[in-house]
C-alpha cells in the first residue's frame, strides 16, 4: 500500500490552501485576500459553502467499521464526539489543543489529533480508535507488544501512543529507532515510559529487543 501524499491531501486538514483559509478567522482571511486576487476568488468559493449550525446538525461518522449517527453542534470535535456522544472513550483528552497526542486516532490510516478535527470534517473518512485494533478478542501486535514490554504505566497516554505506532508500522513495517522516535514525537507521557515504548515498537516490528537492566541479587 502506498502512503497518501500529505502535501496534496486534505486529510490532515492543514496542508491545503483551502483548508488553511477555512481555518483562519474572517479578519485574517480578508487581510490576506486583499493581497491577491487568486486568494480572493478562493475565499469566495469557501464562503459559498453551506453554513451549518450553530444548533445541532446530523453527523455521520464511520468509526472502527461501524456507522455512528449523531446530532452535534458543528463546533464539537471528533474527540468529543467519540468520548461524549458514544461509548468510545479510548481516545483521551490531555490538552485539547494538539500538544499531547493522547487523543490520537487514525483517519484513513493516518494518525491525527482528534481534538483538532471537527466531527463534521471527519465525515466520509474511516476513523480507527484504539478500540478498533483488537480483532476477535485478540490484541494487535502493537497492543500485545505494549503489554509484553510494560510500555505503559498509568495508561492514559497509551491509546495515543498505540495509534501513532500502529500508523507507523502500517506504512513502515521495519522502522529504525529514529523513525520510531519521530513517529512518537507528537505524544507525551508523564509517567516516563518511553524506553519501554521503544522496546514495544521493536517487538511489534520484529526487531531485536534490547534491555540493559541488570538485577543483582543479595
Amino acid at each position, binding site marked *: 500500500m502506498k502512503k497518501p501524499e500529505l502535501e496534496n491531501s486534505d486529510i490532515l486538514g492543514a496542508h491545503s490552501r483551502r483548508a488553511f483559509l477555512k481555518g483562519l478567522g474572517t479578519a485574517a482571511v480578508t487581510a490576506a485576500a486583499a493581497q491577491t486576487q487568486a486568494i480572493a476568488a478562493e475565499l469566495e468559493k469557501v464562503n459559498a459553502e453551506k453554513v451549518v449550525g450553530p444548533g445541532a446538525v446530523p453527523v455521520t461518522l464511520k468509526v472502527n467499521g461501524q456507522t455512528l449517527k449523531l446530532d452535534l*453542534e458543528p*463546533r*464539537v470535535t471528533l474527540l*468529543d464526539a467519540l*468520548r*461524549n456522544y458514544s*461509548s468510545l*472513550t*479510548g*481516545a*483521551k*483528552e*490531555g*490538552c*485539547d*489543543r494538539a*500538544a*499531547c497526542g*493522547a487523543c490520537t486516532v487514525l483517519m484513513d490510516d493516518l494518525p491525527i489529533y482528534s481534538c483538532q478535527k471537527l466531527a463534521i470534517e471527519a465525515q466520509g473518512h474511516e476513523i480507527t*480508535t*484504539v*478500540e478498533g485494533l483488537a480483532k476477535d478478542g485478540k*490484541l494487535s501486535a502493537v*497492543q500485545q507488544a*505494549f*503489554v*509484553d514490554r*510494560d510500555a*505503559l*504505566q*498509568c*495508561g*492514559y*497516554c*497509551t*491509546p495515543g501512543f*498505540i495509534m501513532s505506532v500502529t500508523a507507523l508500522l502500517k506504512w513502515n513495517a521495519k522502522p529504525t529507532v529514529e523513525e520510531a*522516535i*519521530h513517529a*512518537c*514525537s507528537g*505524544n*507525551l*507521557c*508523564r*509517567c*516516563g*515510559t*518511553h*524506553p*519501554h*515504548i521503544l522496546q514495544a515498537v521493536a517487538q511489534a516490528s520484529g526487531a531485536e529487543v534490547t*534491555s*540493559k*537492566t*541488570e*538485577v*543483582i*541479587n*543479595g
Partner: protein
Amino acid sequence: MASWPTETKYISHATKRVDGPVKVTGRARYASDIQADGWLYGMILRSKWPAAKISDINLDKALQVPGIKAALKAREGEFTVRFYGEELAAVCGTTKQACLDALRAIEVKAQPLPFVVREDDAKKDGAPVVWEGQPNISPGRPNSRGDVDKAFGECDAVIEGFYTTPIQIHHPMETHGSTTSWTDDGVTSWASTQAISAVRNNLAGALQLDQSKVRVLTEFMGGGFGAKLDNSLDTVLAAKLSRQAKAPVRMMLTRFDNALAVGNRPSTFQKIKIGAKADGTLHAFEMENYGTAGINGGANIPAPYIYAVPNTRVNQFTVRVNAGASRAFRAPSHPPASACMEAAMDDLAAKLGIDPLEFRLKNDANAVRQREYKIGVEKFGWKEKYKKPGSSPGIVKTGIGCAGAAWPAGGASRQTQGEAQINPDGSIEFRLGVQDIGTGTKTVIAVVAAEMLGLKPEQISVKVGDTHFPPGPGSGGSTTCASVSPTVFDICTKALEQLQTQSGIADARGDNWFAACKKLGVTPLTVHGQWQQGDQARPLSSSPAYGVQFAEVAVDTETGLVTVKKIVAVHDCGLIVDTLTLESQINGGIIMGMGYALYEERVMDDLSGVVLNPNFETYKLSGIADVPDIQLVLLNMPERGVIGIGEPATVPTAAAIGNAVFNAIGARVGSMPITPAKVLAALGKVPAAVKA
C-alpha cells in the same frame, strides 16, 4: 514463619501488568471516561486577577444559556481571590459548548488588588501582602551545630554558591477531576485521585454528610505524582452541581486549570557555603534558603542533604506569593535538596582538585550508597570517562556527573487492610481500598497472591479503588507496594489456613487449589487480612531506600543546548516484587528528573500576575526524543522485605545532570532548569538574564 519464600516463581520475576490488556484496548475506564446515566458536563470559572476582592458574581445570564442545568458560586458572599486561576464559580450543562458559553456569561464584580508573584519581590519591605496582616516571609527556623565560623577558618577550601530550583508542575496526563453524583442516597464520586479514603472523608466534611454516605471509586486514574493526594474543590463543586441539577456531573479540569490551581513543587533559592579539609573531609556548611509554595505550604528542604558535616548552620524561609499553592510532588523537598547540595559538592571538589566521585565516597557514610557507587562506577565507566571540568575539547563538549539519593519513607502504612473472596469454583478476588496510580499496584497484589497460593497471576482477580473495600493508604510516600504486599501475604496465609481446615486438604496450594475450593460447597470463603511486620530478621517490608545515578551529557557551546546521552541508575529495591513494573517506575523517575534539570519551570509574569506557560506547548515535558540511553542496576535484597522505589528514583537525576554539565563546560549553571540561555550566560557568551 512470617517471611517471604526464598524460592519464588513470580516474586522478583517479570510479570506483565495485569491490567495491561484493558489499558491497551481502551476498555479501562478512567474518571474522565465515566458516562453515568444522564451525566452533565461541568466547568469552572477561574479568576483572571492575581488578587482581587470579589463583591458579586451574577449567574443569571449563565443559567439562561441553552443546555445549562445548574450554576453556583465557588464561595458565598464577598471574598478575596489570591491567585490567577482561583475558583470563582462553576456550571454544568448538557454539552461542553454550553458550559463554555455559560462561563463567558457569568458577570463578576471585582476590585483588583495589588499582587506580587516573584519571590524576591515578595520579600521586599512594602511588597503587597498575600494574606492580610501577615508578612509574606515566614519566620526563619535557624538550626545550627558546632562552631561554624571557626570551622570555616579551619577549612583548606571553601566555596560559596547561589543555586536555585524552579517551580515544577505535576501535569499528570489525566487532569484532576471526577464524575460525581449526589442523590438522596448519598454521593458517589468516580475521582481521579491517589487517595480515595481522604477524598471520601474530605468530601463528606465539605458536604456535611456522613462518611458512610459518600463512596469514592478510582478503578483507573491517569497519574498524579502527589498532586492528587489532596481533595480538590472541583470535586466539591461537582457534587453541589449534581445536587442542583439532579444528574451526575463530569468535572474534569482543563490543562490550563491544571497548571494554575492544583499544586506544584516549590521553588528554592539556596545560598550555600561549604568547606573541606585538604584531604577532602567536609568540615563546615552554611545555607540560607528561601522559596515559594505560592499562597500556601512550605519550601523547606533537608540540608546538607545526605552528608554528615560536623559544623552546620541552616536557615530557611517560605515566601508567599500570589500563585497557586504547592502540593506534595514525587519525593517532596528531595530533588531540590539534592540538586543544590550535590552541585555545591562538585564545585568544592573542583576547588580541591579531587574527583567528585572520590569526594562522595569519602564523605557519604551510607553503606548502601557506597556499594551502589562502586557498582555504578564500573557500569558507567566513570574512570575511563572522567576528565577535569572544562577540559573537554571542541564545540560540543561532553561531561559526566553523579549524585546520591535517600528516601526515608518508602515503608508501609501499618493500617492497610484487605480481603479475598474464594469461590467454590476456585476463582478468587482480592479487594483492597488502595489505588493503582500507574505504579502497578494491582499487579503487585496478583503476583504476591499467585506466589502464596501456588496459582498464576492471571488467575487472581484484583479490585482496588473503592471506599467500600477494606481501607488502605493514599498512594504517597512510595508506601503502597510495602503496604499491600504484606497485607496480601496475611490474607493468603489466613485463607490457606481456613481452606485447609474446611476442606481437610493438608496443602491447598497449587494443584490442590481447585479440589480444596470445591469442598467449600455453595458458600464462598471470605478472608480479611492486614499488614504484618513479619519476622524481625527478615521483615515483610521495610524502609528507607537509597540510590545513586550517573549522567553523561553533551553540551553545544555555540547553542547552549544540553543533550543527555546516558544515565546509569543503581537503586536498592528491597525484595523486588515485579521487575517489569519496577523498571518502568525507575525509568519514569529518571525522565521526570531530567525534565526538572533541563526543561520544566512555571513562568509567571510579574506585571500581570498570570502564569505564562499553562499548557504543554510552553511548559516543556521530556519527550521521547529527549530520553537518553538508560541503564538500570537493581539490587534485589529479599532480606529487607518490600520497599518503595517510585520517589527515590527521581531524586538524584537532576543533580547528576547538572554536575555533568559543569564537568563538560567548566562553569556552573546554578539555576535549574539548565536552559540554553543559561548555559551561554555561564560561558560568558550572552549576558545573564535580569531575573534571579
